[in-house]
């Protein structure tokens, strides 16, 4: 599970460099997010623009990552492709996360 992390305008961004977060990838995803966000203080922006498929295990891993960061830190999402967006909408998890169309839109909102 390849993730990259960066900081833009003071916001930590985790970018998933894989096309799928499915059952086979879920555990590694959760562990990697934990590793790259450890020790920070701020809201984390998860950039999913390369991800074209998630299943309920992948969704669960993203939720688990948010729970690890809470209560002090939030996890917000950007760049949901149609298939990913659909899983969030069907399960109503889109109401739980801040969801932004693009990283740029998320950064603008987080800076205000």
């Amino acid at each position: 599970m390849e993730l990259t992390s960066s900081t833009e305008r003071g916001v930590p961004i985790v970018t998933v460099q894989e096309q799928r977060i499915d059952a086979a990838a879920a555990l590694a995803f959760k562990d990697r997010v934990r590793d790259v966000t450890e020790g920070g203080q701020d809201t984390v922006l998860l950039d999913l623009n390369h991800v074209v498929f998630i299943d309920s295990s992948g969704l669960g891993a993203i939720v688990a990552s948010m729970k690890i960061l809470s209560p002090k830190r939030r996890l917000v999402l950007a760049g949901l492709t149609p298939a990913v967006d659909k899983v969030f909408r069907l399960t109503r998890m889109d109401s739980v996360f801040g969801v932004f169309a693009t990283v740029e839109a998320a950064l603008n909102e987080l800076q205000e």
Partner: protein
Amino acid sequence: MGRRPPLPLFSISLLGVEDAVREGIAQTLAWLTPLELSEDETNTVQLVLAEALNNVVEHALAGTGGQTTVEIRGHHGASGLDLCIVDKGIAMPDGVVPRLPAPDVTVDVADLPDGGFGWFLIHTLAQDVTYVRRGKHNYLTLRLAVAL
């Protein structure tokens, strides 16, 4: 609209382990190429298959370590894509398809569900979801309203 050539019945076998599910889905999608599914339809097929196959390898075949296979059978007709997933694992608890409501997400972050969405997604996206146990085999059948 031109009529599609009929899709032949197909059967795909995969090892009953988590890491084989992706390949099983990819092979199924390859079989479905003649249907010219839309992006959304393709995702529906992938998602339902992923949830159903993950259930099989995580529950019915738990602990078998890839010693057994799972079969995906498919057929496309006027009412959509009929899929049947066959395995030789343990029977479904109570002998019926679990039918649970979606987990509640209007709760504190600490109490959010990070599982329990699989059957909800299957029932949301598929029709006529049925399960039978015959002999030592589990049969999960369902229909997807794609390429109608």
